[in-house]
């Protein structure tokens, strides 16, 4: 028998595999699959703290509504947000933009200190045809681009609709900050982790409104629950003409706007 023939006899398809080998290999494969399966299952336990023990996130679907026609640009919301959430100086989880549309030319948009210290009369000297304030915050998008780019699973959407960041998990890579088309996220300079509006998750889970909604003196900011049929915000969403920011991005924002001008981005 030549060398070539011997090789083909031993390793070729003609050699029958013994039943024992086959079973051994099958068992090994099955074992591997089962092992992966077992590791993948993590036993559930009660994670919500004592204070929120009555809160069932399956019974809520939060939604935010801004009436831009009411906003007076006082900045109370921005200051309240900073105090409530320890937002570092120079960073904003919510801010107010002022749009001034001249008789001719492009719209002028400003947001000095995020509107935190109010606004001053415009000095640019242009003749303003119309002007208005637009409060902004994280849109808590249903199809959010920010959580899907997180490489470590630090950013996620809760079952009641809030988009949150786990600061113990975040590695501060900044992908989510770049992914957000609304500029709603920032890198906390102290912790070096991404941070954003949480809709004051610690408040809404205790039956309170977010701090910005709580302090708004003119009711321009509203917060509601999609799963509560008696909610006034739900009623407004159903009957009024609402818009979202940059609908062409298909991010399905859960922050809706009344009286939004076409100039607003």
């Amino acid at each position, binding site marked *: 028998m030549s060398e070539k023939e011997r090789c083909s006899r031993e390793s070729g398809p003609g050699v029958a595999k*013994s039943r*024992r*080998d086959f079973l*051994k290999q099958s068992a*090994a494969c099955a*074992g*591997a699959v089962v*092992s992966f399966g077992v*590791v*993948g299952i*993590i036993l*559930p*336990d009660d*994670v*919500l*703290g004592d204070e*929120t023990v009555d*809160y069932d*996130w399956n019974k809520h679907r939060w939604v935010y509504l801004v009436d831009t026609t*009411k906003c*007076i*640009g*006082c900045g*109370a919301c921005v200051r*309240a947000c900073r*105090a*409530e*959430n320890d937002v570092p100086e120079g960073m904003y989880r919510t801010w107010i933009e*002022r749009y*001034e549309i001249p008789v001719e030319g492009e719209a002028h948009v400003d947001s000095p200190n995020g509107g935190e210290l*109010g*606004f*001053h*009369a415009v000095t640019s000297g242009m003749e*303003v045809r119309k*002007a*208005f*304030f637009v409060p902004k915050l994280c849109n808590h998008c249903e199809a959010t681009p920010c959580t899907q780019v997180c490489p470590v*699973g*630090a950013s*996620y959407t*809760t*079952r009641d609709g809030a988009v*949150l960041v*786990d600061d*113990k*998990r975040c590695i501060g890579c900044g992908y989510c900050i770049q992914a957000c088309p609304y500029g709603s996220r920032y890198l906390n300079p102290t912790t070096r982790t991404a941070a954003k509006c*949480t809709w004051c*998750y*610690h*408040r809404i*889970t*205790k039956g309170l*409104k977010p*701090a910005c909604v*709580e*302090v708004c*003196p*003119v*009711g321009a900011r509203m917060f509601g629950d999609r799963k509560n049929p008696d909610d006034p915000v739900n009623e407004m969403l159903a009957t009024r003409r609402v818009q979202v920011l940059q609908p062409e991005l298909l991010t399905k924002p859960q922050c809706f706007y009344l009286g939004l001008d076409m100039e607003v981005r």
Partner: protein
Amino acid sequence: MQPNSPLRHTKHIFRVGLLLFAAIVALILGRSFFVPDTFGQYGPYRGANVGEQASHEVRHGGRQSCQPCHTDEFEEQTEGGHGTVTCEVCHAPAYLHARDDEKIADMPIQRSADLCLLCHQQLKARPPGQPQIQPRQHLEENDGEPGPESCFECHEPHSPL
């Protein structure tokens, strides 16, 4: 062992099996070491973080939290022209002043005209229904003295005109 015996590969398969077993053990140990306990509980994130976020301190108590101790001011304020402005907008978040129904510090009382002008400085962008003034012109028209607390000479902040 005969060269054609069906058991001639046993040793090799055993070695490969051992390697595979070691790899699986390493994977399980590695995973349990690197992946947090509650990761994957509700989705691809650390489930315990939901409770951590929910347990942050509430700092703004809302105007209802002021009512028990400041009943008179509460009534005057809610019925007046500033009825929609909650206490904490002009003062400070309640947590700086009281905790567990006990006063821990004085609440700041702001009397600066700058505070009033946050809402009442005349601006084109404000809705027409908002009461607005040009401070200098307003003082001249009403014989007011310019100063940091000039608004309070005529206006009572809890229930202004």
